[in-house]
């Protein structure tokens, strides 16, 4: 079962992304926590593409593709912006330090890496693609 969605690079598209993922997973009777974890991981990557790779330029767009094969979920998020966006290698954030510094950002990719079984960013032509996968028991 495969489903696709194209969104504009605007923060307001994030609700649409979450609704799309929830709707896609709704037929599987998965625990609330599992669905929320997948929704969150996708939301974080999409938000990164929208804000950091595309500077919230609404004329740019992203394509999402979800594929569930038995219990294995595969997610592809393709960015069509002009910038190659490859996040820095994952490091665990020092949250006590973040609190001291009053930092707002820097936790999104740490969450994604903890929520999904596999997280990969790669280039396809001049574009960046993120592939996420998770075994849904």
């Amino acid at each position, binding site marked *: 079962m495969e489903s696709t969605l194209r969104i504009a690079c605007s*923060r*307001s598209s*994030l*609700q649409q992304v*979450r609704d799309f993922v929830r709707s896609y997973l709704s037929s599987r009777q998965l625990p*609330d*926590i599992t669905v*929320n*974890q997948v*929704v*969150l991981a996708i*939301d*974080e990557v999409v*938000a990164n593409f*929208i*804000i950091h790779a595309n500077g919230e330029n609404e004329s740019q767009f992203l394509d999402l593709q979800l594929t569930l094969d038995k219990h294995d979920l595969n997610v592809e998020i393709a960015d069509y912006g002009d910038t190659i966006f490859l996040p820095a290698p994952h490091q665990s*954030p020092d*949250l*006590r330090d*973040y*609190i*001291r*510094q*009053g*930092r*707002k*950002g*820097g*936790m*999104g990719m*740490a*969450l994604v890496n*903890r*929520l999904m079984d596999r997280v990969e960013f790669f280039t396809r032509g001049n574009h960046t693609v993120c592939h996420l996968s998770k075994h849904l028991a």
Partner: protein
Amino acid sequence: MKVTAQPSADTLTLLLDGELDASSAIVLDTELAKPDILEYRKVLIDCAKLSYISSAGLGVFISHLQRFQDANVKLVFFNMQEKVFNVFEILGLDALMTIVPSATEAEAA
């Protein structure tokens, strides 16, 4: 995302309703950044109707926590849904923030 403020004596309760993400986090940030919030002894966050939180939402709380601690304002979360608590837990924030089950415990914290 809707934030409703309920002041009473030395406590301010903020009721969060909806999904807290990179788009809506600004609403909460504006509320927590108000200078007069530091006049309260406690700020209680009622999460009963908070159905989703992303790192942008967590970031808003993290960015104000030190300011609250410096002013001796206690920040307490209560009525948190399991799936929302799970997000705090994954990052280890449940150990750094005060999260209690109910309003009664939040008032006593």
